[in-house]
């Protein structure tokens, strides 16, 4: 298997590395320390990154995007995450939903939404699935129970749909301009048969953003509540068919908007954080002195650095392999496994890095401590039991096909 990069892939990687080093790294620790959730965001960095193509990386070239392959996307996510995991995620969140627009929207919708998205450096995308009483349970039993899963209702009135309900923890909600929203359109049917996906614009009447969540990690990344009070959405904004929101099913064909990219995304982002941690650990161990000698002279420190690099390189192999497989349309449970694995790796590697910085003053350890907080985010979106069971179910489906 040949994992050497093409000139174009290498060029994107270098552009992202330079941007992370020169633009992201100088601001990341200060933004992280802003006390309230409104002070952690910076439009300037989004605009400057967008001008380099990081916002529209996954939009097809015919719509004015960069049209890159998965390998490039994985490389860029990792490089940006090396600067700041949450800033990387704010960019790649748009790729996730660009994939979905390309895969699931009709020609008129692509024209209406992809063009303005590409043209506006402050145009961010999001998708609302989770609700105060529904989220992970969408994938957990009892999957056929009509009362299980999300509650947000949409009822048709002529050419419009009236949405009522609430979403929470929605990424990019406070800063996004366009959202995919899953809503129940048949209350008596199970989730998969009774749900429709809508495109909802930020200025839709009856739709507003509620609370912005103040998280311990990924502080740049905005998660917010969405409130729908008789929000009026045109029928032309229905994605796919009514009562058939599930774009990820085999019946829907090779859709790449959901888990295919999302799983790779979290693993690639984790890889960047691990690279940063390894670099910090080595730098500290080679310069800090303890008991009259550099820290690296201690076998204890060497063993930690060994383990950090071992895990990071194993994760890199897995991430690049999954990206390559996606480009070759070889889909398996590997992306999900990489995502689960990235949780274990990012947490262990950042904790070891903090360990290495144990004797350092609070100021030096500040960076190491931030990485641990960012890494803990993986616990509830990439490596929690629900995500692991989901991947096990995928493995069982693959086994059943053979």
């Amino acid at each position, binding site marked *: 298997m040949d994992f050497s990069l093409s000139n174009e892939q290498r060029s994107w990687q270098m552009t992202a590395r330079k941007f992370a080093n020169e633009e992201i790294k100088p601001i990341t620790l200060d933004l992280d320390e802003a006390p309230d959730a409104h002070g952690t965001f910076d439009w300037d960095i989004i605009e400057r990154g967008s001008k380099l193509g990081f916002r529209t990386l996954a939009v097809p070239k015919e719509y004015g995007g960069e049209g890159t392959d998965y390998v490039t996307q994985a490389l860029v996510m990792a490089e940006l995450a090396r600067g700041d995991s949450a800033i990387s995620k704010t960019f790649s969140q748009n790729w996730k939903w660009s994939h979905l627009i390309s895969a699931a929207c009709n020609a008129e919708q692509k024209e209406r939404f992809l063009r303005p998205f590409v043209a506006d450096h402050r145009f961010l995308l999001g998708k609302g699935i989770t609700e105060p009483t529904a989220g992970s349970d969408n994938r957990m039993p009892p999957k056929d129970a009509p009362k299980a899963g999300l509650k947000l209702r949409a009822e048709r009135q002529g050419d419009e749909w009236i949405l009522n309900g609430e979403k929470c923890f929605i990424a990019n909600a406070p800063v996004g301009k366009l959202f995919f929203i899953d809503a129940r359109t048949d209350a008596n049917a199970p989730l998969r048969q009774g749900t429709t996906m809508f495109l909802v614009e930020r200025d839709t009447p009856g739709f507003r953003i509620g609370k912005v969540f103040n998280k*311990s990690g990924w502080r740049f990344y905005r998660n917010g509540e969405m409130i729908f009070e008789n929000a009026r959405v045109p029928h032309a904004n229905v994605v796919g068919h009514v009562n058939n929101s599930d774009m990820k099913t085999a019946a829907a064909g090779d859709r790449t908007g959901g888990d295919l990219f999302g799983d790779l995304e979290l693993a690639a982002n984790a890889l960047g954080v691990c690279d940063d941690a390894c670099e910090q650990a080595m730098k500290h161990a080679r310069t800090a002195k303890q008991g009259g000698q550099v820290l690296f002279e201690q076998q204890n420190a060497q063993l930690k650095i060994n383990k950090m690099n071992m895990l990071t390189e194993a994760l890199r192999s897995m991430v690049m392999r999954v990206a390559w497989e996606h480009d070759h349309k070889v889909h398996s449970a590997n992306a999900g496994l990489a995502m689960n694995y990235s949780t274990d790796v990012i947490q262990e590697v950042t904790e070891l890095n903090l*360990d290495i910085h144990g004797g350092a003053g609070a100021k030096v350890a500040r960076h190491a401590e931030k990485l641990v907080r960012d890494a*803990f985010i993986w616990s*509830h979106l990439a490596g929690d039991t629900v995500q692991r069971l989901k991947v096990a179910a995928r493995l069982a489906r693959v086994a059943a096909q053979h």
Partner: protein
Amino acid sequence: MPDLPLTTIAKVFTAETIYRAAKDSAECFGAMGVMRDMPLQKYIHDAMICLHTGDGNSDDKLRIAETLANHRRGPSMLAAE
């Protein structure tokens, strides 16, 4: 049986246990486990301080091994020495 450094052993063990328990319980709360207006993220932070307080767990483990082997090191080398 040598004199076991029970205090250090207990410190290392409890610090690791607190950290694991705090992480597991935060996971049970899903996204609320990382919200600043909820206590879970604070418990994790506190548990992490237990891991790194004093000499830190990995240096403590070295001390336990040294005590068991009745080993005396020459010049000081650990962070807290």
